[in-house]
C-alpha cells in the first residue's frame, strides 16, 4: 500500500468522525509540519500553537478534501499560509533583523551549541523564512519541485533560485557559526 493510499484510508475514517484516526494523522505529520512552521516563525512554542490551530482547521475542512493533491501538500499549504499570516500579525518581524547579518555576539553565543542537530537548527533559524522553508520542504519533507510550488505558492523558477540560494546561505551560515567543524561543506 502506498503512502497516499494509507493516508486515504485514515482520512476516510477522520471524515466519519473517528478521533483515533485523526490522532494517527496528526502523529504522522506533526514533526514535518512543525519544522515548516519553525522555518517561518523561528519560535518553536509559537509554531506549536499555530500548528494546533492548523490541525483543528484541517479537521473542520477535511470533508472538503477531494484528493486532488496529496494530503501532505494540502496540509503544508495550510501550515505555510497560517504561519505567514501569523508573521504579518505579529509585526515584530524578528526575522528581518536577522536577515543579512549575524552579529559577533550572536555568533559566539550560538557557537556554544555543539551537537549537530542544534547547529543546523540554529543556522536555519538565522536564515530567511522563504529559504529555510524551501530547504526543509525539499530535503526534509522530500517534496518535488512541483509540490513545493503548490505548497508555497511561489513560481517554479523562484523555488529553484531560492533553493540554490538557501543551500549557499546555509553552508555559509554554518561555516560562520561553527567554522572548522563544518569545513567539508
Amino acid at each position, binding site marked *: 500500500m502506498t503512502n497516499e493510499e494509507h493516508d486515504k484510508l485514515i482520512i476516510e475514517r477522520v471524515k466519519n468522525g473517528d478521533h483515533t484516526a485523526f*490522532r494517527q494523522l*496528526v502523529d504522522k505529520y506533526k*514533526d514535518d509540519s512543525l519544522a515548516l512552521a*519553525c522555518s517561518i516563525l523561528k519560535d518553536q512554542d509559537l509554531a506549536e500553537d499555530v500548528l494546533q490551530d492548523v490541525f483543528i482547521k484541517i479537521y473542520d475542512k477535511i470533508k472538503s478534501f477531494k484528493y486532488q493533491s496529496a494530503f501532505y501538500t494540502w496540509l503544508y499549504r495550510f501550515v505555510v499560509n497560517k504561519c505567514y499570516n501569523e508573521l504579518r500579525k505579529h509585526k515584530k518581524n524578528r526575522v528581518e533583523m536577522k536577515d543579512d547579518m549575524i552579529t559577533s555576539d550572536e555568533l559566539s553565543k550560538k557557537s556554544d551549541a555543539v551537537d*549537530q542537530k542544534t547547529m543546523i*537548527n540554529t543556522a536555519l533559524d538565522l536564515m530567511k523564512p522563504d529559504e529555510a522553508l524551501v530547504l526543509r520542504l525539499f530535503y526534509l519533507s522530500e517534496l518535488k519541485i512541483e509540490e513545493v510550488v503548490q505548497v508555497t505558492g511561489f513560481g517554479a523558477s523562484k523555488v529553484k533560485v531560492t533553493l540554490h540560494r538557501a543551500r549557499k546561505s546555509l553552508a555559509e551560515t554554518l561555516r560562520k557559526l561553527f567554522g572548522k567543524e563544518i569545513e567539508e561543506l
Partner: protein
Amino acid sequence: MKDPIEKLLKESKVETSHDFTDQLINKLDRKLERKMRLGLYLLMAFVLTFFGAIVFVWIQSGYQISAFGLSVAIPKTGPILALSLVVFLVLMHVRNLVRQVDI
C-alpha cells in the same frame, strides 16, 4: 555519496512536545462541545420563539369553553401562565441537557 546539506537537514528534524497530540485532541473536544452547546442553545431559542408565537395567537383570539348550555370565559392570564410554566420546564430540561453534554 549523499548530499551533505540533505544529510544535515535529515538529522536536524525538530520534534513537537510530547503532549502535543493530547493537547490538540483536548482542544478539538472542547471546540466540538462548544459547537454542540451552541446547537442546543439555538434549539432553546427556537422552542422559546415557537411557544411565544402560540401564546401571542392565543391572547389575540381569547379563550372560552361552552358546555351544557353554559359558557365559561377563561381569563387570558390562565393559559398564559400555564404555557409559561411549560416553556420554563422545557428550557430547564434543555439547559440540563446542555450541561451534561459530553462528546
